[in-house]
């Protein structure tokens, strides 16, 4: 049965980014000077094991009222448990029926009753196993944490209006659609944008400034520049290099570094451990390409 075989594999849940979404594979005509690699990818070797426990789904302050995704999706938790209950209850019902109807406890292939019971038990087992499969592939929930920091919105001066519009759009969209809580754009030794939560300066308060050249010389950026691919630090606390980014709130949970062309980086911090899903990463790659092409002509 499907579920039996599958349950052996649950310990092998990989955190893996190689998402292949290709409704069409045409290229983005004439806009981008170069496409940054294929798709966003995890840094090699970043392997996260998801424990096998099943826990309730992630809940956060993201609006969860009426998703418009249909009843089944909105009540996914309940629907996932449904086969377990139905299968288990039927299993018990068949056995009780047998026990209380005074049927001999020996299963006898020549008796219609035994044949029907065996078939019903097999069906209930199949339903229960399906339920187990549905329940087991669930990730550990991650709750957003309150980040220590101050709100900040700094856009570099003397930028053309289109570029300002572009970066503010990127920030607003990312803040809205993903769990991004801080966004920093560094391009050619300049900090173009610092938005969202930033660490507070120790001496006189206010948000910490971004030292663009320090970021570009740090080892985080060097690795990024070599790979030319998105790097996702799903659990930022494990990376000592995080001290190269003192302007992020000190308890930022997850971080994405998206290279922008040759000499820039888009830094996104999240308040949730593993806060960026594969879908978010794809969008971040796309936004990175767009920001690069917008900034390349002007900065």
């Amino acid at each position, binding site marked *: 049965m499907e579920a039996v075989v599958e349950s052996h594999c649950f310990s092998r849940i990989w955190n893996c980014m190689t998402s292949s979404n290709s*409704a069409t594979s045409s290229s983005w005509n004439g806009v981008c000077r170069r496409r940054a690699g294929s798709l966003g990818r995890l840094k090699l070797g970043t392997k996260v094991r998801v424990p096998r426990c099943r826990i309730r*789904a992630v809940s956060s302050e993201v609006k969860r009222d009426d998703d418009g995704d249909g009843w089944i999706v909105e009540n996914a938790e309940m629907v996932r448990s449904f086969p377990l209950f139905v299968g288990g209850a039927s299993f018990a019902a068949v056995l009780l029926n047998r026990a209380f109807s005074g049927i001999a406890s020996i299963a006898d292939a020549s008796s219609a*009753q035994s044949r*029907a019971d065996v078939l019903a038990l097999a069906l*209930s087992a*199949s339903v229960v196993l399906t339920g187990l499969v549905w329940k087991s592939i*669930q990730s550990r929930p991650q709750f957003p944490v309150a980040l220590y920091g101050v709100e900040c919105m700094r856009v570099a001066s003397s930028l053309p209006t289109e570029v300002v519009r572009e970066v503010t759009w990127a920030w607003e969209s990312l803040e809205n659609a993903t769990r991004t809580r801080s966004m920093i754009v560094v391009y050619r030794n300049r900090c173009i944008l610092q938005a969202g939560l930033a660490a507070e300066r120790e001496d006189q308060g206010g948000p910490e400034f971004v030292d663009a050249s320090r970021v570009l010389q740090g080892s985080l950026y060097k690795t990024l520049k070599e790979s030319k691919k998105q790097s996702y630090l799903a659990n930022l606390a494990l990376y000592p290099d995080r001290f190269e980014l003192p302007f992020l709130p000190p308890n930022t949970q997850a971080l994405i570094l998206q290279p922008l062309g040759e000499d820039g980086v888009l830094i996104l911090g999240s308040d949730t451990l593993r806060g960026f899903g594969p*879908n978010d990463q794809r969008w971040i790659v796309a936004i990175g390409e767009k920001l690069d092409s917008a900034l390349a002509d002007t900065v």
Partner: protein
Amino acid sequence: MRGSRGDGTYVVRAQRQNDGPTPAADDSDNVDIQVFRFTLGIPGFDDSDLPRMVGILFGGLIILNHALSLSSVTPALVRSEAVGLFLAAVSISLPAINRQLNGGKSSSRVDLGKKQVFALGENLSDAQRQELAWSSYTLLRNTESTACLVSYEGKVVCARGFWDAPNADGAEGKCFTLAWLEEKLKSKSFGQLEEPLHLTSNADGQLPELVPRGTASLVLEPFPESQTSEKGSKSRGFLLVISQIPQAYRKNDRIWIGAIGKKLSAALQG
């Protein structure tokens, strides 16, 4: 990955399947895992359909059993059979529920035997062309969309993907495609919608004149009202994305589509 066990009597094939987003109650993102899973490896048979096969087979056997033992039907047997048939029905419906849970992404891809188009309207500035090219490309790549369309001030300014457009090549062909789509849109005034229109299934049945056959879901995102245009005038536009997969647009996708709509409307006005 392929491995044989024992003395080679059977082969277990493991596929890496993306189980799709696990749409737990709040699903602003999809879960970031992939699972190595063993499959039966029968070509043309989706393993998630297994409960359905079991349900049909065993349900049939229960009926057969009933037919063969009509002479000795006892109340206990009837009860067992009732439970068995109920379970068979549940089993048969499980794959359909599973598909809904996982956003239909586990079902096999639809065959798109059509030609892709990419057409941009005339009289657009370079910046606008870039914006349209990037947006349409990103939407097709990052969502399950098969085609998208941008209409502004009653004109179709961008069409990309698998539209069922009549065959035409070259620059003239593109204009022709746009004009053909415009003709189809004429009877509708989607630009005046206040809220995004979201159809989760059978979109081709509900808007047969507009979308190609086989379209299951669509999102139509009207551009936000601008200050310059008069209220209620037909001057606004909209962004339309369609997909062959039912429930292709989850909440997160729709947020992004809204963001792209906002960006496009700003770019087209500017």
